């Protein structure tokens, strides 16, 4: 018996130029904040951007964006609403603030359901906010999304970086592209993570100092975009865009799908 939903996932993603999974080995390193800020920064530059929260058991991007009554509409599938300029999708549209305990097979099933029924339409970038680690969501995202690229977030802690190494090992074994590593919540001038990243043969993309103003900006994307964290993420955004000259902002002619 075949699961027909899997056959249509490619079709649903075919009008998306680039798909970036913001991932880490550990939780609490700032993935969701960086994923949300990156998506908002790309949209601010005129790109058509989607944000999909794939952390089904502990979603948080809805809180970062401060979403209100927005809900997906039904049109031959699920069409994500526009939230602060992003096409935004989250399981919280359906689970609200209830605890949703899901085991591995449930996570896979929910992911297949939403990948196969969500109609993103044309997007320059789809940013995926991944759950931490190398569990079902990570394995399924890699399995189902051909052009997926990973942006890895760590803190200065060697404990966080230990788990990053495992993530990188997995992604390499699966031949998945890694854009590079972002060090978040820096407290001093240590270069350890930068050196360790380079030892792994990966690009060290950005160092983001610990920003005590971020907490107050949760739920207010305009305020979030004015934080020191956002300044760094905007720089990261420019670095990512430099390597993707073929993807143009909306309204500019000649948008091409990445080969």
């Amino acid at each position, binding site marked *: 018996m075949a*699961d027909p939903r899997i056959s249509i996932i490619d079709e649903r993603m075919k009008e998306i130029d680039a798909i970036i999974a913001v991932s880490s080995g550990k939780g609490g390193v700032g993935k969701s904040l960086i994923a949300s800020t990156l998506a908002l920064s790309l949209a601010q530059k005129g790109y058509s951007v989607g944000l999909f929260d794939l952390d*089904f058991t502990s979603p948080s991007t809805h809180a970062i964006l401060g979403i209100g009554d927005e809900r*997906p509409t039904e049109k031959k599938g699920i069409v994500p609403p526009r939230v602060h300029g992003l096409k935004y999708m989250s399981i919280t549209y359906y689970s609200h603030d209830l605890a949703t305990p899901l085991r591995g097979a449930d*996570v896979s*099933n*929910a992911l297949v359901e939403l990948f196969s029924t969500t109609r993103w339409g044309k997007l320059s970038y789809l940013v995926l906010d991944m759950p931490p680690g190398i569990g079902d969501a990570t394995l399924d995202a890699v399995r189902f999304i051909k052009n997926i690229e990973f942006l890895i977030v760590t803190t200065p802690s060697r404990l966080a970086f230990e788990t990053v190494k495992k993530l990188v090992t997995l992604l390499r074994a699966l031949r998945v592209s890694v854009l590079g590593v972002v060090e978040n919540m820096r407290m001093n001038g240590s270069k350890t993570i930068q050196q360790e990243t380079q030892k792994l043969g990966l690009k060290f993309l950005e160092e983001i100092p610990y920003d005590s103003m971020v907490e107050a900006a949760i739920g207010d994307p305009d305020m979030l975009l004015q934080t020191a964290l956002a300044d760094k993420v905007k720089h990261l955004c420019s670095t990512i865009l430099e390597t993707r000259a073929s993807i143009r902002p909306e309204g500019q002619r000649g948008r091409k799908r990445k080969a």
Partner: protein
Amino acid sequence: MHEWALAEAVIKAASEIAEREGLKQVTRVTIRVGELQQVERAVLEFALSQLKTARFKNAKFDVETEKARLRCRVCGHTWVFCEKNLDQATLEAIHFVPEIAHAYVKCPNCASPDFEIEQGRGVWLQTVRGVK
């Protein structure tokens, strides 16, 4: 109209199977739909009839619904999913993401949300028959 997205998936997957098995004409497709999907059968059948390509011109689509059976991982109690106990908004949420049941349904014996969906989830292509 979430059924439309599933119907598209069924046609695409059945076409791939027909192609692989060298079926020029598909005569019968059997689809099993888990009760938790909360799919409207008539809508799904209509969508299939609208989406079918030339290869499916004479195909009959049989849609079977599989009852949802749940088993509590804490106390072992098994029970059948009963939509009568749930309001419309909850049923709609389960319709879009069946696993959302874990947020709304509890074991009737011990109230645990940690249960296994033994059967009655997902969409399955059971058989694709045709003429070579």
